[in-house]
């Protein structure tokens, strides 16, 4: 009986994430304090490190691009009731598609390479997610288990490919040869001086377009209606005439395609070659981004920017504040993911209670519930 009233939408979407974020920063601050540094100084260092100059902001946007792709991948699947934890593996394997197109079309221009590499990234990432989708739809193997296993398979596969198939003939490291300069995706720095020396590239615009596109897909297309129905109530979805197994396979493929675009950004736009671990856990950050963004593209855009800022600002922190090592930065990032992602519901009951107290007509009821106690 102690069911609390749901929060107003603005509180759920704005206030709750802000509270979570604040708590993450407070706890991070305590950690910084514990090792004898000034937390405010550290926060300032992160903020300027992320937004302080064109150089810093460029890096922030570059990280955010990846997080938008993986955040959308997680959110799209989540709307269909599927938890795709395999963004990392899907992005990683998609690198094969990008590098194949880029190296095959080496002598041509980026105008040709770019769209084809993009499609290749989506195709390979999509296939890598389709297999768990198929296994879930037709064989009942849970995607949470299969996608996480496919992350391991992807990691092993890529090590093999980079050591034995794609390794540059002249190089020592397990990485492919460089893509010819003409075939590389242009960085924004080539057009905008503000972003000088930063890796942010044209794929940022693709990410922004996809934020809009995925919004339309989920809420304004018939397929979006179908996948939301499936996510809310699989029985009703079958009742409505949808083939749940088909939707699962299509959504997983789309989700993998979105995650695969990380490879498009990294391989064609930043590294300009295929290297080990270029995904750098963007797939997992995508889960936190989607959670914090409430699976809504607008929220995902903001959350991706926040995490981009944390990554970039965190990197700067170690240079600005002596005594704060790289590991310290990882702790702060982990705390933010922990509080905004995994523990995003922490404040919900308290906030709901507080809201009832602040609306007079609900106050009596709140008190009654409090005294009615834990029975039920």
């Amino acid at each position, binding site marked *: *009986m102690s069911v609390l009233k749901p929060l107003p939408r603005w509180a759920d979407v704005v206030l709750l994430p802000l509270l979570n974020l604040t708590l993450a920063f407070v706890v991070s601050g305590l950690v910084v304090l514990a090792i004898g540094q000034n937390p405010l100084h550290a926060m300032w260092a992160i903020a300027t490190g992320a937004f302080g100059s064109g150089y810093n902001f460029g890096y922030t946007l570059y990280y955010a691009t990846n997080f938008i792709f993986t955040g959308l991948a997680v959110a799209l699947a989540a709307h269909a009731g599927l938890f795709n934890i395999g963004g990392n593996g899907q992005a990683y394997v998609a690198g094969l598609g990008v590098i194949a197109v880029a190296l095959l079309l080496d002598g041509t221009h980026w105008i040709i390479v770019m769209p084809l590499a993009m499609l290749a990234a989506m195709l390979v990432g999509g296939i890598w997610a389709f297999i768990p989708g198929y296994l879930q739809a037709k064989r009942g193997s849970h995607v949470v288990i299969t996608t996480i296993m496919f992350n391991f398979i992807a990691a092993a596969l890529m090590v093999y490919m980079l050591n034995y198939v794609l390794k540059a003939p002249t190089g020592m490291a397990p990485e492919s040869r460089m893509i010819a300069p003409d075939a590389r995706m242009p960085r924004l720095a080539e057009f905008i001086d503000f972003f000088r020396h930063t890796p942010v590239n044209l794929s940022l615009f693709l990410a922004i377009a996809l934020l809009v596109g995925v919004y339309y897909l989920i809420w*304004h*297309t*018939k*397929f*979006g*209606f*179908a996948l*939301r*129905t499936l996510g*809310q*109530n699989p*029985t*009703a979805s*079958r*009742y*409505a*005439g*949808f*083939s*749940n*197994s*088909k939707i699962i396979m299509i959504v997983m493929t789309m989700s993998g395609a979105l995650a695969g675009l990380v490879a498009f950004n990294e391989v064609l736009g930043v590294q300009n070659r295929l290297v080990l671990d270029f995904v750098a856990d963007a797939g997992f950050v995508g889960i936190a981004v989607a959670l914090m963004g409430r699976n809504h593209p607008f929220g995902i855009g903001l959350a991706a920017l926040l995490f981009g800022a944390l990554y970039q600002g965190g990197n700067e922190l170690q240079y600005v504040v002596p005594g704060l090592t790289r590991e310290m930065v990882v702790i702060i990032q982990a705390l933010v993911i922990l509080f905004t992602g995994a523990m995003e519901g922490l404040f919900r009951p308290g906030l709901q209670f507080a809201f009832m107290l602040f*609306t007079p*007509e*609900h106050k*009596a*009821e709140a008190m*009654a519930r409090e*005294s*009615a*106690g834990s*029975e*039920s």
Partner: protein
Amino acid sequence: MTSEGTNAQRPETAAAKPGASDWAIELEKINKRFGPVHANKDIDLSVRRGTIHGIVGENGAGKSTLMSILYGFYNADSGTIKVNGAIQNITDSRHALALGIGMVHQHFMLVDNFTVLENIILGAEDSRILGTSLSRARSELGRLEKEYDLKVNPDALIEDISVGQQQRVEILKALYRGADILILDEPTGVLTPKEADDLFRVLRTLREQGKTVILITHKLREIMAITDAVSVMRQGEMVKTLETAKTNPEELAELMVGRRVLLRVEKGESHPGKPLLKITNLTVADDMGVVRVKDVSFAVRAGEIVGIAGVSGNGQTELLEAITGMRDQRAGDVIVNGHKLFLKGDDGASRARAAGLAHVPEDRQRMGLVTNFQAWENAILGYQNSAEYGGGLMLDGTAARAAATAQMQRFDVRPLNISLKTSLFSGGNQQKIVLAREIGRDPDVLIVGQPTRGVDIGAIEFIHNQIVKMRDAGKAILLVSVELDEIRSLADRILVMFDGQIVGEADPATATEGELGLMMAGISNREAAQ
């Protein structure tokens, strides 16, 4: 049915307990507000000790709130509660139990993989060592079983016993904790007719032993059959308390709704035409692979309502699901308007719908609606691919919203707010949303399961009228309901299902409840006639 016999006993039981504590419960001027909603307004209620007292009212009339106050879930804003003549301030349900008030909820609070005995002592263990509690409870349970004729196997697991037995466990739990006053919230909603009869027998025994029973229900038949007195609530107010012997269902229905209600469906002769729905040799298995529908054949003609009667669990659910493409068939055909349906694969429902077969499912919240969606999204569910909601890939939200508004207006869905989340509509209005969607498309065949389950009396009348209207428009309607009254008053022809087979056919105008009951127990037409 047996009310005469029990009413005769009532004066004696009442007379046996004279004095001030004649009343088990006395509520005076109880008020309770939830924000702007005034759920209970100045409620007075007196329940005589040793009687069965019914409380009726439509959904949202405030019955459950009132009982929650009595059971200590909520605190009343004002008013006094007297238990056995003494004023009490009931703070929580533990306190209520200490005063001898027990409650059996609509949804049982049992641990499925515990035994009956373990569930009964759960939360009432005497010591940290379970063994002594269990053996003490076992002997106490034996005494209770004998005293109240409540037989259950104490060592059976809850998940292995029937719903009716589970309810007995809930009652035993309350008695074990010393309950003297038992509140039952819609106890028969989940029971088969046989189980309901058993429950009533138990309640009568409880009354004979001097216990007081408060029965919350919206089924007037039950009120008439078992209660001594009945209180009617409407929109948070106590309308009237009557002696059951001095009232009748029509009067109670009128008091509940606030206007005259037709309990019988008004319909003319049926004029059946050609068969629109034909089922031939249909065999269906459930999820566990058990064959639940065995080689069933029948037809529903244009302009008739065919009702399928039967104790629930005899294959009706699987039959409906197979016809509507929700479940694979093992063998047999479903033929709609001369076209054989291809129902293999998990999107069979779309082909059934395309062939002109509309489906109002038995469990609207599990199947017929997405309760987290806004009303307009549910108004197009299943028909989302039709051209009027946008050709191609895009969903035309404007057209869908317009269609939803029209449907909801036509079926008088309240509130008329297409953007409201569907779970916030009452049960009756949710059912109207489903019916408006399914009937609104003018289908040739309508399959309806439990059309009025959990629906208020006022809405029941409306829903029945809509179904009859469809019949008169020359459509074929297949109706499945556990309410025998509903089938008898609505159907033009009754098929009785038992153990996966159609065991007989009856004419609702001539068949008696006894005949139908025998057929539902598996005794076929010819045998029943003998």
